[in-house]
């Protein structure tokens, strides 16, 4: 199962080398880590390279709207208990980035791969995974992405007949709909605060009934499957009913949910929950997310929230009032250019926090907050916002490119 039983063909080897050369040139030119361009060059030379690189690995795929980068890190850390792991830990999650990451780990036993939700079916076909973790699906960048239910439909088609173990969130009806075409599913009660993309039954269109944590469609009988793993407060419940404590450096309910799913994935590879969860403690900031930085003699925690579901989970983990909050929103093409989603987020939950708003679309935020009836200040930039924040650790929440801007501004 492990190591390179068969060497790569000459064509594949050349493709890997050419890809590495392109990545080095890209890095030298100061254009990022180079992982994507390296993978693109390599895939052009050998279109089957991804498949060939993966065939010597036990592959885990991780996909979701939110939490895939963090969960990929958690699973990789857990599986290192059993052997070397190669992973696209930096979040380059489309085929080129994945190819580049796998090419970097020729002696690895496991490949733990984050996959963009639009590419899951194709990558799953190419790499013959042993396990696929599915965390959640919700609205994200609707001006350029597929409709959320259509994504679930594509997952469902791509996963039918999959031999991999699917480890899926029983609390997200769209994920359950997508996963239940597969014969081999481990259901995890991982929770999902955001519910507004699943009021309509994905199977028949009936109105979903959602009493407490349960959910079902009264019309067609599609319902929440019985989970074998569960997140319960600060513990993971395993299939034997044992409760294992979660110790993470990462904050929030959503990350505890990611840990629960990761423990279930690790168990499928023979790593016991206790070992897996202990190892997950090593994961701290993921690509700057959750990092606490020192700037202008202030502590600032950097939080990424890209869509309504992400903002909701983020609000539940920030320090209570009067902790100051900086909000930053852009609408460049990587963010989605329609800011309407701001109105799906309940900014009323920030009442009592001193709030400073920045970013390309700070005026959209200003109107949103005005209508929510909460106090706020519109600021020039990060430096100005930090200066205006009253004492206390600052919680800075930003969407995708705004988060990159913020990291640069505070020297992260």
């Amino acid at each position, binding site marked *: 199962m492990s190591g390179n039983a068969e060497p790569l063909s000459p064509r594949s080897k050349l493709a890997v080398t050419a890809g590495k050369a392109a990545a080095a040139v890209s890095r030298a030119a100061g254009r990022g880590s180079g992982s994507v361009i390296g993978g693109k060059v390599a895939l052009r030379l050998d279109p089957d390279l991804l498949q060939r690189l993966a065939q010597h690995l036990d592959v885990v795929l991780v996909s979701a709207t939110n939490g895939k980068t963090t969960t990929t890190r958690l699973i990789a850390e857990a599986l290192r208990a059993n052997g070397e792991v190669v992973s696209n830990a930096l979040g380059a999650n489309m085929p080129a980035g994945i190819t580049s990451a796998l090419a970097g780990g020729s002696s690895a036993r496991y490949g733990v791969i984050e996959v963009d939700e639009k590419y899951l079916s194709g990558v799953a076909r190419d790499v013959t995974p042993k396990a696929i973790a599915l965390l959640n699906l919700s*609205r994200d960048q609707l001006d350029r992405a597929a409709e959320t239910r*259509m994504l679930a439909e594509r997952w469902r088609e791509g996963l039918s007949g999959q031999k991999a173990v699917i480890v899926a969130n029983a609390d997200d009806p769209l994920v359950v709909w997508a996963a239940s075409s597969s014969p081999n599913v481990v259901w995890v009660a991982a929770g999902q605060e955001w519910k507004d993309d699943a009021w309509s039954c994905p199977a028949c*269109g009936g*109105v979903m009934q959602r009493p407490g944590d349960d959910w079902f469609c009264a019309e067609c009988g599609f319902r929440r499957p019985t989970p074998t793993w569960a997140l319960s407060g600060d513990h993971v419940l395993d299939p034997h009913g044992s409760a294992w404590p979660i110790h993470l450096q990462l904050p929030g309910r959503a990350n505890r949910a990611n840990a629960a799913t990761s423990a279930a994935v690790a168990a499928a590879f023979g790593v016991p929950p206790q070992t897996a969860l202990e190892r997950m403690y090593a994961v701290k900031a993921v690509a700057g997310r959750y990092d606490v930085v020192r700037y202008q003699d202030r502590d600032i925690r950097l939080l990424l929230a890209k869509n309504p579901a992400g903002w909701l989970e983020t609000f539940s983990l920030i320090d209570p009032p009067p902790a100051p909050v900086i909000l930053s929103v852009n609408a460049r093409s990587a963010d989605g*250019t*329609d800011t*309407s989603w*701001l109105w*799906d987020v309940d900014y009323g939950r920030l009442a009592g926090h001193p709030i400073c708003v920045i970013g390309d679309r700070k005026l959209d935020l200003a109107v949103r907050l005005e*209508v929510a009836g909460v106090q706020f200040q519109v600021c020039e930039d990060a430096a100005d916002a930090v200066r205006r924040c009253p004492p206390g650790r600052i919680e800075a929440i930003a969407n995708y490119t705004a988060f990159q801007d913020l990291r640069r501004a505070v020297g992260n």
Partner: protein
Amino acid sequence: MSDTSLRLVWVYPDLLSTYGDQGNALVVERRARQRGLDVQRLDVRSDQPIPTSGDIYLIGGGEDRPQRLAAERLLRDGGLNRAVDNGAIVFAVCAGYQIMGHEFVNDLGERSAGLGLLDVTSSRGEAARCVGDVLGDADEYLGLPQLTGFENHQGITHLGPGVRPLARVRLGNGNGTGDGTEGAWRDTVFGTYLHGPVLARNPLIADMLIKLSLDVNALTPVDDTWYDALRQERIAAATQPA
């Protein structure tokens, strides 16, 4: 209705609330309360009857399948048509706008019947999806400033003689028919392709709906500083693309 209360009905948020459509309800609610009105907001799911005693009904945008389901359930229910017969105001966006018309093309590629509250008929465009900022001059009858919004639709809506366009676009596609029209209205029923949400970008439309429901010509002014700043920025961005 009394002069001091407003019944605001948000129709089918379980199906048609994909593009921040709650924002339109929040803006009407906020601006009515700022005028001292007692606002009752009712969010009606698609397995509940539509009340016929509302003053303003809002219906939003959504994906193709929920749009078909919403039209089927609204037709079966009949409440929205009765409310309009009683003089209620309807403001419909995108998928909701198409449902107000005679028919639209559904997710199965078939024609679905709409409610016939607007003399419009929608089909699906062959060209690329209309996505981006929109700028338009509002129908002179409405006494509104320039409209700004964001469109994201494949639909094309043809207007019949029983409606007037809500606006003429300067930028963007609007109804997608190539004649420069955007949205449609007659009496108390309004439809538009604009998100943003449109009432956050154009608060005077929200005020127009409130005035219609109270049957008054003017409302006490409220602080529009941030709305105005946002409007200026979006209008400038639309007219001077980067």
